[in-house]
């Protein structure tokens, strides 16, 4: 990987960090749990890394790395699927209120 690319990735990291700070400002307390759970699902993005790392591992011999990669995909998928579904369920409960209000 070229040094320029690495540095730009770090740049992306820094700016995304500031963006993350700005995105969350005043959240009503009943949204704390869904927000936590929703961003938790996003942190399952590591699934992309897991798939890529597993593919690389499959190019080499060593069974251990394949299994590690496989487990990484499984765990990340649980995080992603479970995270989004739980968040949606929670938010669905709030929804009732809105429906009745209107």
């Amino acid at each position, binding site marked *: 990987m070229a040094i320029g690319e*690495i540095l730009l990735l770090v740049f992306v*990291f820094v700016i*995304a*960090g500031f*963006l*993350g700070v700005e*995105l*969350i*400002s005043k*959240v009503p*307390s*009943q*949204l*704390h*749990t*869904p927000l*936590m759970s*929703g*961003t*938790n*699902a*996003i*942190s*399952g*993005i*590591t*699934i*992309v*890394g*897991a*798939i*890529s*790392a*597993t*593919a*690389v591992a*499959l*190019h080499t011999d060593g069974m251990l*790395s394949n299994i*590690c990669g*496989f*487990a*990484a*995909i*499984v*765990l*990340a*998928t*649980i*995080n*992603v699927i*479970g995270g989004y*579904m*739980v968040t949606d369920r*929670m*938010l669905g*409960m*709030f929804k*009732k209120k809105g429906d*009745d209000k209107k």
Partner: protein
Amino acid sequence: MTFDNIRTICTTILYMISSVLFIRGIKLLGKADTARKGNLLSSVGMLIAVVTVLFEKEVTSTISFGPAQNAYIWTIAAIALGGIIGAVWSKKVEMTGMPQLVALFNGFGGLSSLLVALTQYMTDKNINIFSSIALGLTIAIGAIAFTGSIVAWGKLSGKMFKKNVTIPAKNAINGLLAFVGLVGVVIYALSIAGVVGADIGKIGVIIVTCAYLVLGLTMVVAIGGGDMPVIISLLNAFSGLAAAFAGLSISNSVLVVSGCLVGTSGLILTLIMCKAMNRTLYNLLFGSFGSTKKGTAGEQKEPKSMSVEDAYLILEAASSVVFIPGYGMAVAQAQHAVKELCDKLEANGAEVSFAIHPVAGRMPGHMNVLLAEANVPYEQLKTADEMNPQMSNTDVAIVIGANDVVNPSAINDESSPLYGMPIINAFEARTVFVLKRGKGTGFSGVENPLFTNDNTVMIYGDAKQTVTQLVSEFED
């Protein structure tokens, strides 16, 4: 333009789209009206990212291999397995179990990042110093997010680590573990730089893995269960950061962006939650929990109690009533009965409102969800800040299965572990009814002096039963 170039352009654009969806998703998640849409957007972003990686060179190039080494087969199998587990768990969890499930999921995310780093460690032969440092940090942060979340899950679900273990010299030990782990990262980086051998590098990797796995445990095990929501939010930020570092080490932009977004937005959310509980993050992480005293054990008065019939007479005469629900209402599933009682009281001419404490129940927003389910109109739900000034003009405050959130020691007993937490000032009401089953303490395990106040009356029994009886008294 070569085929590989076109591929790079397309995948980067797709990753960009998915990053934008995450950004919009997080933004929308923070507002009540749009939260569900935000969650949907971010899940679409995730889908795009996952599909995109399947077109990356390292994945497509495994097509020519046999089925045992075909990345698609492995990936689809793993996703199917993980997807089923995730879907089933998230479907069957009860509402009160959600926070611990989030903790568990978060732990899995952290472990996954850790495994990604280890896989890369084992297979990537072209690693450079920079990537090696990122890889080491991924291990560290992934490990701490993993064990920390598991402990948090155990504490919240009551399955493990329920007691607040007091670790002597906790901060020194944790600091040492953190330092040793970082030394491990440096050793590994040095091995990549060729300063030390690959074998020593391996030791470095083992050191950082173990040190931070233990650190997650020692850090979280000493923190009280009441602070777990905040800790989960912090660990969530960590697992985001772990994904971002994994992205730096395998040079994948979408991991960097979304991981870092989760990392910093999670940190801000953590601080917001700390503020709602009147804690500082520093105090929570480094403060000593050991000094918990069980209130002033001295003059232990016996609380007065009353029958439902007598309580009815007082309620009938009340012109302003405030409900203060807590975890017990959730346990008893009393929300529908409470709504009925509320309607009766209003028909009787009383002014009724609900005072909702931000951490009543077992997750933020717990009471809001339950009362919304029972069709209590949104306008009747008041925050502590809105309600407290009016509390002294309230005829009857009905505390339904709440305990810690109405504990006056938080205001006037500096030695109490609850001291400093904002509470709902139920004790200021002219009469306070407390509906609970017996003399059990709340989540924090602290005695509640409110119960022995002169203007407090206990109505023992399951909250749902008691409330239903009150309703039928009104009907007669």
